[in-house]
């Protein structure tokens, strides 16, 4: 789903599952701190200093919320109220060999276009 970084929830921000253990959250927080620290080479050429600061602030906010079981529970309930959570499913085979492009709207065929022209003339 298309989301702005400001709209990512704390789990998405730290790249952990909602079922993540406190240790996993700690490890993800450390990794995020490394990514968004001042002068981080991972941001070179793509992210401005102001954007880096904003994300780092949110990362810290996320960790402060998720490290404490009480605040985490409260946050999880708030998330559930917004949208129910379904754990990730196993990958499944979906139209293998077909183009993703085929899932798009069908193009108007020749016959449909001829009909449109004929009926418009007939009506007139």
């Amino acid at each position, binding site marked *: 789903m*298309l989301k*702005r*970084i400001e709209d*990512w929830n704390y789990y998405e921000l730290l*790249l952990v599952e909602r079922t993540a253990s406190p240790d996993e959250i700690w490890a993800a927080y450390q*990794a*995020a701190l*490394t*990514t968004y620290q001042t002068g*981080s*080479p*991972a*941001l*070179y*050429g*793509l*992210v*401005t200093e102001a*954007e880096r600061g904003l*994300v780092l602030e949110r990362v810290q906010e996320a960790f402060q919320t998720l490290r404490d079981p009480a605040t985490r529970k409260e946050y999880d309930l708030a998330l559930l109220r917004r949208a129910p959570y379904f754990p990730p499913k196993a*990958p*499944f*085979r979906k139209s*293998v*060999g077909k*183009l*993703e*492009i085929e*899932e*798009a*709207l069908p193009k108007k065929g020749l016959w449909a276009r001829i009909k449109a022209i004929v009926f418009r003339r007939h009506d007139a």
Partner: protein
Amino acid sequence: MDKRIWAIGGGKGGTGKSFLAASLGLHLASLDREVVLVDADLGAPNLHTLLGIKASHPDLGDFLTNAVPSLAEAAVETPYRNLRIVKGSENILFIANLNHYRKLRLLRQLRQMEAPNIILDLGTGSSFNTLDFFLSANPGVVVSTPEPTSIENTYLFLKSCIMRVLKLYMDHYKIRDLHQRMLEQIEKNSQSLYGFFKSLMESDRAYGTILYRALRGFRPCLVMNKTRDDRDVLLGRSIADVARKYLLIDMQYLGAVPYDEDVLSSLRELRPFYLEHGDSAAARAVRRMSEELAYSIEFTLRTPPEIRLPDA
């Protein structure tokens, strides 16, 4: 037959694309899998040298000039079992500026070639030829090193791939006016890709959805090469995280290949590093990555979106 085309690419020269391609090829061949290495570095081919083989004919240029009728006939045996190679052409001026028709012919032949594993060693940069070869493959592996210049070029390469994917879909749906809008918006700042999609979703949700799904179908892998410490290893994870947030792509970090002085010494002796130093940490890392890619359920189930190139 479970056929897979691997592409090894990246934005900067000297990151170790050819080294990784040769090592992956040798490893897969050692597992009794038939492998064809294709030196698709059109401007500076040297994959054969990494395998300790001299340049000779037939090569890719012979196929492109119709001197040999098919790509399969340009694939010559190597001293290593199960491994064949399509060498790069010595006629660099002609090959580096490959025209559209020849590129399509090469792409078609790569798809038709009867080999379970084809590994493309791509050149540096973001020319349409390189991007189209990279986007036709699955898995597509981007190789970077921990230097800021390499990281900067990696992001540029990824951005170019994204814009190429979107442009091909725009051309297919004849919504070319969007292309100019995309170019103008994406250059603005790091969150501009999000901004572009957001405004597109508001103005035309159907096309916005198509293009967003096309973008999500582009899922490259990242390899950090020549790492010297844990910070360099973690850097790869950070880059994948940043690409996910700012470029909206799901990039998988495969891992790091540690720096090894012996790579250079093997090259000087014209002997493949992977065979000479099979127990080194670098060779072990390559083994782990190739097995992850070869047996990963995700890559087994997923086929890349076919790139439909415009006719002209």
